[in-house]
């Protein structure tokens, strides 16, 4: 079981976001939404940004603990 706080903590400790918002779209269906603003994303293609976020939760996504992660990832 994954909780919103855990998702947020992992993002904060890895991506140095200036803002980070995590929402459970449906806890039951294990769908979460993350909106991240970080300097790390400057000049980075959209696919790479999403992959970077996905990689943080690779195990959970593959195991099904997280079914879907809706991602908005932008530089400031």
């Amino acid at each position, binding site marked *: 079981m994954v909780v919103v706080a855990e998702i947020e903590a992992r993002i904060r400790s890895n991506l140095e976001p200036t803002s980070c918002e995590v929402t459970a779209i449906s806890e039951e269906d294990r769908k979460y939404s993350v909106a991240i603003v970080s300097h790390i994303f400057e000049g980075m293609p*959209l*696919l790479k940004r*999403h992959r970077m976020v996905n*990689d943080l939760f690779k195990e959970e996504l*593959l195991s099904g603990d997280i*079914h879907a992660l809706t*991602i*908005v990832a932008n530089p400031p």
Partner: protein
Amino acid sequence: MVFFFPSFFFHNHDRELSCKKLSKAFIYIKKIHKMRSVSSLKEYSSLKEEAGNGLGLVVHFSASWCEPCKNVRSMLEGYLSQYNQKVLFAEVDADLVTDVCEAENVECVPFIAFFRTSLRERAQERVADVVGGKLDHLEMNLVSLYGNGHDTRESFPDLNEYLKYLTSRKGVVAFITGTPSRPRCGFTGRLVEIFYELGIKFIYYDVWASDEVCEGLKKYSEWPTYPQVYVDGELIGGYDICSQLKESGELKAILKH
């Protein structure tokens, strides 16, 4: 095709046996290449049972008075030889065989239902529908569900080669859960809606059809979820990225449309 057998090749008994085998072969070939006409629920059940041996099945519900049905029939007949021994094609006259229409919950013509042998049940599973005579949707589903007739998994040396082939096919290739007309996940449904809205032509692969592909492609692409959208073998992204690219007005260009 004419066979000539000089009479001295056979004793009478051998000739009879050979002719019987030949006749059966002809019947078999004719049967496979022909559009099946279904005239009863019993016949329909037998057809589905026959297709349950690893084949696909396409059923065209039509009517004699229906003009678009002629175009559908003509198009499907054009695919008979390509999908020989892989897909069965059948036609049901909706006016005459009402119990089959009721069994399949079909209420209009033309209506084309697509079936696949289910991995899990060894029975025909209905996986896609085309309502009306949309020939482009008809073609999309045929190619997406049954390939080109000879590009099955077994014809590739390993999974990676197969995945490379699948992702590199011409145009936009979307790996989705379910099909456009029968999506199994909200993200798949929403992705398809974006494509339709922008007039983006695509083919799909239903990852539910193969656990090997479903799990293998995640590793191949280093992308852990579905849908996954490809152009020229390159991963574009999932629903989120396509949605954001649509909002920014870049999606059609990136999909080379």
